[in-house]
């Protein structure tokens, strides 16, 4: 995994965002950086927990009962909805159960919904990101994918895959992410689940220079790609 503490000052900058993060007042790149800090730094995670608790009280302050019919609708939907498996420590230990961006970390689970925002043009985003002087997240590469765009970003040593305007896979199929190294052997990197055409996935362990590839696979994923490669993002 990427080295930590290589930029102490940068870490401080991220730490300054903990309160904004608790209020969801950060953009997706900042969110990824904060959540990485929270995984690595228990003290920061403790501080964030206090902020989150404070923020959630602001929700309590405006509590309003939903209409009773909603309860029945929710219970009916729950009765036919499967729950996720508990988190496991790293994606590679349980590849079949993971999707990029959700791998073992509940904290990123809703990022997918956020990318509708972020990717109002990931190239545009890349420009924004590249323009930042501090944490130096950068757009590594971008390419077309499923009527939309996929991009690979480096955020402070983490790699994040983003999609925009992406068509959902057919029923019973999933988009699976692979890395292709020099040896050309595809390594499964998790799944992408577009919501409202967007997705965000975090790659835990990206190899520099690898090529990102996306295929469409049967639900549950495959050990080896079984479809044509839909997109490659050379890095």
């Amino acid at each position, binding site marked *: 995994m990427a080295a930590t503490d290589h930029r102490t000052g940068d870490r401080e900058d991220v730490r*300054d*965002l903990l*309160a*904004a993060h*608790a*209020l*969801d*007042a*950060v*953009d997706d790149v900042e969110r990824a950086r904060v959540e990485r800090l929270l995984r690595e730094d*228990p003290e920061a*995670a*403790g*501080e964030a*927990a*206090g*902020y*989150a*608790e*404070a*923020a*959630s*009280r*602001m*929700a*309590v*302050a*405006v*509590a*309003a*009962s*939903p209409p009773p019919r*909603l309860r029945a609708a*929710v*219970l009916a*939907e*729950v*009765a036919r*909805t499967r*729950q*996720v*498996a*508990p*988190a*496991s420590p790293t994606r590679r*230990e*349980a*590849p*079949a*159960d993971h999707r990029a961006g959700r791998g073992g970390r*509940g*904290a990123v689970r*809703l990022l997918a*919904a*956020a990318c*509708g*925002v972020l990717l*109002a043009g990931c190239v545009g985003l890349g420009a924004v990101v590249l323009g930042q002087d501090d944490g130096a997240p950068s757009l590594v590469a971008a390419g077309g994918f499923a009527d939309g765009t996929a991009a690979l970003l480096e955020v402070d040593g983490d790699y994040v895959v983003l999609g925009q305007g992406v068509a959902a896979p057919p029923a019973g199929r999933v988009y699976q992410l692979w890395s292709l190294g020099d040896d050309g052997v595809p390594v499964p990197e998790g799944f992408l689940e577009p919501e*409202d055409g*967007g997705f965000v996935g975090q790659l835990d362990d990206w190899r520099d220079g690898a090529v990102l590839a996306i295929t469409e696979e049967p639900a549950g994923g495959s050990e080896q790609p079984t479809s044509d490669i839909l997109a490659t993002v050379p890095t």
Partner: protein
Amino acid sequence: MGEVSFLRPERRRARPGAEAADERPEDPVGDLLRRVARGDERAFEGLYDAVAGPVHGVVLRVLRDPAQSEEVTQEVMVEVWKQAPRYDAARGSARGWVLTIAHRRAVDRVRSAQASTDREDKVAARDADRAFDVVTEEVEHRLEAEQVRRSLDVLTALQRESVELAYYGGYTHRQVAEILGIPLGTVKTRLRDGLIRLRDEMGVVA
């Protein structure tokens, strides 16, 4: 699938303010959520009754449109059901976890709507509403809500303005800075100091 481990290295220490809430001997919402994590639908009904008010309240506050808010509230509650096995008590209270999901989902909805309409639209075009200009009729936990509203009074006017724009307005800290015409660093400071005050106040109130 491979071996699944649910163990965490150690329980993380919460900050003093949060501890008071965490250390209450009973956390009914947490108990419900742990049962929900095991697929207990009856427990989910109890959980729904315990959190639907704040969930819907915050979603409505951010989105303002009742029909859309109902839709998002439903999505959030189903998401809570789905994700319950991933809830990690070391990262915060059960209710906090649920409300984090709710707020983020509402904000995501606002931002993707903004993105799909016109990103050039200046954020200032939206009203910078005061958070409590409308008191909702249907306050479920009226007493607690009242207490929490009072606890917001510990914030200075400037802190409160920034915190409310961020949380209830669904704006990023950059947008808050733009709306208020103040430096980004100032916004970050107000958000942080505001939440610290709120957190410490909660410790007393709880």
